[in-house]
Structure formats: structure tokens, C-alpha cells
């Protein structure tokens, strides 16, 4: 008996070691290997299609500063403009919604999440429809009112930055309001008690305390802007304004495709973004800013009197510009034969939807995206739940390394990761390039951080003693899982499933590289429709995609409200 259980302990240890090594190998294969291939490709100065490379060198890196210096300049200008605008939006909204008595605060806070779920791709298409030169709705109205020329042109540096800022603004809002919420109001109140005026308190206490949060958000948003792709693709390419992401994309389109050049640019982008994100995390975790305690305070909101309604209007304006106006523009466009905002000239029709739903390639792309969404979300959630349990609940050695690997794809720009996967799977002798299998594998890999973070949030909320208590009551591992752990995790698992599903249906960055002629998905198809067919058909396709995401979103909100109710 004693001997047997001794052997059992030993057996369990061996078994755990095998599990750890196997997991590290599989995740490492999915996450790290493509990056290795990318590094190798970037150093290839011989025949760009040869593998392994015939000659190594740094020529591809020098070329960035030599031939593509204007690309770097465009990237910098647009990223800076977009960051400034996004932070302004985020700061204003955060201040209004955490520090003032704006009416309808709870509802507004919920509405602020919407732009995040509207894809930047759809937003960019909509703003191209709204503010394109001559035919854009804004310019049509301007002429309709008797003026001449264009009032707005989206095909400029500022136009690209504007669209990017509009959709990243909500991220800035979430980050800045988190730092405002975590500030102990007693810090301000004690300044007031010491005799400081409202303004003096604001300048000497509030601002210095919130500043690190704002700086952190700026850094994070700027890094995101450098790697942003959709708006630059939809608006930048027709305008011949190339940024680094579109330049990477473009150099793989030429013949022969210049993978070395693309890889060098991709790696350079990755290194810059990775550095900034690491620095950002260091700032947050470094603990040098005591305001971020993780403890939530309910700050007493300032009484703004009649101004409160002005602030309310400001919040509504943001939702209007980022959500309502774009969707309305797309809706109007998709329902006409020729897009116009002068309704007396409009010819309304369902034809675009009929075409979108009957056109072979569009239908298969839509079906493929839905299938991938269902498949990846279902299989992914199960695998990720196991990973989360191992990382955060087991005592397995090496779980820290697994966590790092799993979170790694989050630090790589999606587009660069797509490129890495492309080059890796072109050269790995497993023939899945150009099939849905590779897309599924890629989606699973890039969704790892999202899924694991969502599930971990729920797992960490569940007090460990809830599980321990089941064991002490006599339940075995299986019984405990079935009666306690899984029921408690259910809402979180559903939420993770829906988030992954939505992310798959809207995936663009990795898909553009990995889609094959027989494995098309919807987001890249929308982009190519915009380039080749009319805006009206594209609008219909974009709305069908958006509608799918909205359905998932409505279910998500239902579910998550259930979560908060159950756990509170």
C-alpha cells in the first residue's frame, strides 16, 4: 500500500514533466518557429525565393533606411497624429465619465465599448464613403448647398490618422479611466482640506497622479498605431500613402515577391513595438506609480451644473462619429444602385445584398469565415481552458515559460505574424499552405493571448478555496471539475468563445497572407472588393460581416451581465 502510493507520486511527477515538455514543444512550434523563419528570411540577400537562403547579409535592413525612408516618415507622421488625437479623445471621455456627474453615465460607459467592436476596416470603408473627394457624402452635401470644391478629403495623412484615432480612442479611454478610477479620492480631498482651491488641487495633485497613466496609454497607443494595418490599407493605398505595414504587404505582391525585404521591415516593426510594450509593462508593473493599486475607488464626481449636458453631448458625438455615422453611411450606400446622399436622386435596391449573398466567392468566403470562427473558437476554448488551468492553478514546473510563450503572439503585429507564418509554412514540408487548416492554425495561435487572458480573468476571480472545499468534502478531481469548476467557469468560457469567434470573423492581418485561392475568408475579400468592384457591393459585404459580429456581441453582453450578476 505504502509502496504503491510512493510509486503513484513518482508516476504523477513523470507524467507532469511529460505534459510540460509536450506543451512547451507544441506552443513553441506554433509561436516561436515562425519568428525564426522570419529572422532567417530577413537575412536572405540571395534569391528571395530560395530556402534555405543562398547568402546572408544585412542588405534588407539597410534598404529600409535607403529606399523606404519616405515610408518611415509617413508611418511616423500618421502614428503621431493618430496618437495625439486618440489620447485627446480618450482623456476627455475618461475625465467626463469618471470625474463628473454627467447624466446617464452607466449607459455611456457601455456605449464607449462599441467602437472597439466595430472593426477599423469597416470604419475605414465607411469614412472613405463619407469623406472621399467629390463623391463622398460630406462633399456631395457641401456642393448641394451651393459651394464648390471639396470640404473634406480622407485620402490624406490626416485622413488615415483620423480613422485610426477614432477606433483606438476607446482603448485610450479604457486605459486612462482605469488610472483615474484607481486614484484614491482622499488624496484630492486632503489637498482641499489643506486649503487648496479646485484648480490648485487639479494642478498639484490630480494631474501629476494621473499623468503616468496617460503616458502609459500614449506609449501603448503609439505602439498599436505603428502596427495598424486596416485603415492604411483601405485609405492609404488608393492615396499612394504607404506606411510600414502596407509597405510590407506591398513588397510581397511584387513579382518575384520580396520576402527578405518584407521580413526585415516586419522584424524592425516588431522590435520597436516589442520594446515599447515591454517598457510600458515595466512602467505599470514597476510600481513606481502608487496610484495604480488595483483597488477600485468610487470617486465623488464633480458637480458640473448645466455643463453636464454639454459633456453628455461630447460623449454622444464620439459615439456618433465612430459608430452611428459610419454604419448609417454604409447602410445608405449598400441600399442604392449608385451611392448618393442626395435622397431625391437615390435609386433604392436590395440588389447589392442579393449579389453579395449569391456571388460564389463572397458566399464561400463568408461561409469559410463562419466555419473557422466556430471551429477555432470551440477547439480553442477547450485547449486554452486547459492551458489556463495549468498556468494559473497547477503547480507544474515550467508553467511560467508556458505563460510567456502563450502571451507572445500579442506582442507581434498581426501582419508580421501572418508574414512569418506564410514563410514558415511555405517551407515546412507539411502541405497545408493555401488551405483552411493553415488559417485555422494561424487563428488559433494569434487568438491565444485573447482567449487565455479572458479565461484567466475568470479563473483568477474564482477563489481557490471553492475548489479545495469540494476536495475536502470528498469529491475526486473529475467530480470537482463537473460540479464546481466548470459551472463556475461556464460564463467565462462562453465569453471567451464569443470573443474568439468575433475576432476570427473580422481577422484581416494574418488572413491576407495565408488565404489561398481555394480558402478565402471575408475580411480580405471585402478589401479586394473595395479595390475592384463598386463601393455599394463592398458596403453590403461589410454590413453583413458587421451584423454577424453584432449578433455575437449582443449574446456576449447578455452572458457577461449574467456573469457579473452571479458573482456579485
Amino acid at each position: 500500500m505504502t509502496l504503491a502510493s510512493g510509486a503513484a507520486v513518482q508516476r504523477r511527477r513523470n507524467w507532469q514533466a511529460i505534459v510540460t515538455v509536450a506543451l512547451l514543444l507544441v506552443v513553441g512550434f506554433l509561436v516561436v518557429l515562425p519568428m525564426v523563419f522570419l529572422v532567417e528570411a530577413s537575412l536572405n540577400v540571395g534569391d528571395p525565393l530560395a530556402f534555405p537562403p543562398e547568402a546572408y547579409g544585412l542588405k534588407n535592413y539597410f534598404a529600409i533606411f535607403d529606399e523606404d525612408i519616405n515610408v518611415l516618415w509617413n508611418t511616423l507622421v500618421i502614428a503621431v497624429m493618430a496618437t495625439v488625437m486618440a489620447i485627446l479623445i480618450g482623456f476627455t471621455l475618461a475625465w467626463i465619465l469618471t470625474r463628473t456627474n454627467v447624466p446617464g453615465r452607466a449607459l455611456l460607459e457601455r456605449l464607449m465599448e462599441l467602437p472597439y467592436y466595430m472593426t477599423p476596416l469597416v470604419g475605414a470603408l465607411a469614412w472613405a464613403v463619407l469623406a472621399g473627394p467629390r463623391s463622398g457624402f460630406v462633399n456631395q452635401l457641401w456642393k448641394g448647398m451651393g459651394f464648390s470644391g471639396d470640404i473634406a478629403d480622407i485620402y490624406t495623412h490626416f485622413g488615415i490618422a483620423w480613422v485610426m484615432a477614432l477606433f483606438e480612442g476607446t482603448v485610450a479611454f479604457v486605459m486612462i479611466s482605469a488610472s483615474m478610477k484607481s486614484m484614491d479620492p482622499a488624496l484630492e480631498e486632503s489637498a482641499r482640506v489643506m486649503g487648496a482651491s479646485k484648480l490648485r488641487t487639479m494642478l498639484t495633485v490630480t494631474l501629476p497622479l494621473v499623468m503616468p497613466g496617460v503616458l502609459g496609454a500614449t506609449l501603448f497607443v503609439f505602439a498599436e498605431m505603428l502596427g495598424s494595418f486596416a485603415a492604411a490599407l483601405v485609405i492609404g493605398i488608393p492615396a499612394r500613402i504607404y506606411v510600414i505595414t502596407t509597405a510590407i504587404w506591398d513588397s510581397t505582391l511584387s513579382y518575384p515577391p520580396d520576402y527578405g525585404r518584407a521580413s526585415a521591415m516586419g522584424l524592425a516593426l516588431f522590435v520597436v513595438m516589442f520594446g515599447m510594450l515591454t517598457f510600458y509593462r515595466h512602467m505599470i508593473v514597476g510600481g513606481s506609480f502608487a496610484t495604480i493599486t488595483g483597488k477600485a475607488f468610487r470617486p465623488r464626481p464633480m458637480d458640473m451644473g448645466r455643463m453636464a449636458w454639454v459633456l453628455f453631448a461630447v460623449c454622444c458625438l464620439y459615439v456618433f462619429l465612430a459608430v452611428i455615422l459610419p454604419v448609417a453611411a454604409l447602410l445608405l450606400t449598400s441600399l442604392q444602385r449608385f451611392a448618393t446622399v442626395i435622397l431625391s436622386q437615390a435609386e433604392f435596391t436590395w440588389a447589392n445584398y442579393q449579389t453579395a449573398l449569391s456571388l460564389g466567392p463572397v458566399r464561400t468566403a463568408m461561409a469559410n469565415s463562419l466555419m473557422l470562427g466556430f471551429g477555432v473558437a470551440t477547439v480553442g476554448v477547450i485547449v486554452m481552458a486547459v492551458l489556463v488551468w495549468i498556468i494559473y492553478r497547477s503547480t507544474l514546473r515550467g508553467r511560467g515559460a508556458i505563460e510567456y510563450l502563450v502571451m507572445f503572439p500579442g506582442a507581434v503585429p498581426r501582419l508580421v505574424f501572418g508574414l512569418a507564418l506564410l514563410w514558415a509554412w511555405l517551407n515546412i514540408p507539411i502541405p497545408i499552405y493555401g488551405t483552411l487548416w493553415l488559417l485555422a492554425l494561424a487563428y488559433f495561435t494569434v487568438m491565444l493571448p485573447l482567449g487565455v487572458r479572458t479565461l484567466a480573468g475568470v479563473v483568477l476571480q474564482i477563489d481557490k478555496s471553492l475548489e479545495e472545499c469540494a476536495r475536502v468534502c470528498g469529491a475526486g478531481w473529475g467530480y470537482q471539475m463537473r460540479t464546481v469548476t466548470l459551472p463556475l467557469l461556464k460564463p467565462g468560457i462562453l465569453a471567451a468563445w464569443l470573443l474568439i469567434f468575433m475576432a476570427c470573423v473580422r481577422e484581416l492581418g494574418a488572413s491576407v497572407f495565408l488565404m489561398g485561392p481555394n480558402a478565402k475568408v471575408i475580411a480580405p475579400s471585402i478589401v479586394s472588393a473595395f479595390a475592384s468592384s463598386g463601393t455599394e457591393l463592398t458596403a453590403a459585404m461589410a454590413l453583413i460581416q458587421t451584423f454577424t459580429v453584432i449578433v455575437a456581441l449582443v449574446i456576449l453582453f447578455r452572458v457577461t451581465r449574467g456573469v457579473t450578476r452571479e458573482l456579485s
Partner: protein
Amino acid sequence: MSTTRIEVRDLVIRYGDTTAVNGVSFTVGRGEHVTLLGPSGCGKTTTLRSIAGLEQPVAGSITIDGQAMYDAKARRNVPAEQRGVSMVFQSYAVWPHMTVFDNVAYGLRVRRQGAAEIKAAVERALDLVQMRHLADRPASKLSGGQQQRVALARAVAFSPTVVLFDEPLSNLDAKLRAEMRVELRELQRRLDITSVYVTHDQEEALAISDRVIVMNVGVIEQIGTPEQIYNRPRSRFVADFVGSANLVKGRYAGDGRFETEGGVALQAVAGHAPHGGETEVAIRTAYIDLEPRAGENQVPGTVRQRLFHGDFVQYVIDSPLGALIVRRPPVDLLDEGAAVTLSFSAEHCVLLER
């Protein structure tokens, strides 16, 4: 039949490089209520959790009812669910996705009892904590005190012989805590269970235990009945942590005599056989009288400060022993500056072992 229910021997538990429990041994008798008392980080909770099978020790052994639950030498570690003990968690661990009834019935259902038996046992357990009327309520809709009662009912519903308590009252407010303390003691008596209780609240430990084990930095400082712990603290740590005491430095002169640094000779007792190297005595603040009493240690002093606490009055008295704290009933108040004579018997002047 042995009267020992639980036996812990030379237990060592490590987390990485830190040793949380460093060679702890004690026994708990059948029907006995033993409390592990100590400041946070002293290893008391870790010890308790290893009895439940939730922590894996690195050395020593744990035996329950003569059966080895953990034995380092034999490489034996029975999983938590097979140990047959029960536990009340600090966070209550009431499952929010079940009703009160389902929570309490859990241990019975695991043991595959019949529906009628389960119903009867759950109702009996809920009656014990006066929660029967809330049986159908979702557990997420309970107040802190109610959750605590459910956790208690759940822990005793499947008639375990051993129940472990991990600071079960620490999340309640002071008034409720005092009430629950009384109920818990009552429950222990009625159910004839053996319990090990963990707390950092010395008042709670003294009030509800048959024996108290005082722990500090992973080792046991003293084991004894509440009265022994209070009246004969063995070490400076116990004297200081349990109750309130004045510590006076000096030198043991042999034959029950202790010479303080200020040159005062006191009559003292020891809970141990004095070895001559003792340098400190402890005098409980409650055992010092402010009027001369014949045949006792007597020291002159002056009232420096008086603090009125309601249930007692605390004086700070300057004396040749140093500034002493004295707690008296709130009658016949002395003014600050008044001259007094401190009296305390040799019984209450306890020589500390280290």
C-alpha cells in the same frame, strides 16, 4: 482504543526557499478542540491545510485515527478527498452557483447517500445554524454572516469526525464575531467532533479551545490549556502575544528570587524548572493591584497617565521596575500624579524561559 485522533510529527513545509513550518509536532485527542494561534505568517494555516491534504509537506508525518495520511519516509500522501476530514474556509468558499441546500448537501451527495437521508441530514445541519428557512435561497444572495453559517452547516452535514477551521470568523464584524464564538463553542459540544482551529485572535483562541498551540515563525512556542498559556507563558513571545503583560528585565538569583535591573528583588514562579539563565519576568496587567497587599511583591509608584476604556481603566505607572501598565476595574479612579503601591503575588510574576 487510542484516544488520539490526530497526530502531527516533525512536520516541515517549504515554499521554494522559505520554510513555512519547521518541525511541528502535536496531538489532538478524541473530541478535543485545539487552536493554532499565532501572528500572520507563523505557519498555522499551512499546518492546518497540510492536515486537510491541501499542502504537501516535505518531511514528517500526519496520522488520523491511526492511519498515516502523510508520511515522508514511506512517500505516502493521501489525497484530500480520501482523508474524510472536513474544513471551514476563511473565505467561506460557499459555491455561488448553488442554493444553500445544494451547498450543504454536497458532501452527502459525494458519498452517494439516498435522497431522503440527504434531506434529513441537510435539514438537521441547517437547524443547527438556524438557516433552515433559507434552504432554497441562491448562495450568492446571502450576507457574510449567513454565508458563514452555511459553510459551517456544510462542514458538519456529512458527520465528519474531524473538522478543521481556517480563521472562520475573521471576515465578520466584531459584534457578530463575538456571537458566533459562543455558537461555535456550543456546536462543538453538541456534535462531539474533534476540531483544529486556526486564528490570530488570542481572545478567540482562549475562549473556544480546550488547548491552545502558540506558533511563531514556523515553530511551536507553547502548548497548553488557555489558563496555562495565560498564567504561565513560557516565552517572551507568548507573554506578549497572548493577553497583555509587563516585561521586566533582570537576573534570576535562584530560589524563586528575581533581581530587576533597577535593583528590586521580586518573588517569582516559573512554568519550567529554572536553569538560572533567565533574564525576564512577565507580569499580567490585570494581576497588579494598586493597594499594598501583605505577603506579595510590593513596589512604590506614581500614576503618570490614566486612560478610561469603559470596561477597564488603564494606568501607566512610573516605578523602579520601569513604566508599568496596569488594568483595573473602572471604580475608585486614581488621578494622574497620585502615589500608589503596586502589589502582585509571586504566582503572577512569571519567569520566562527565553
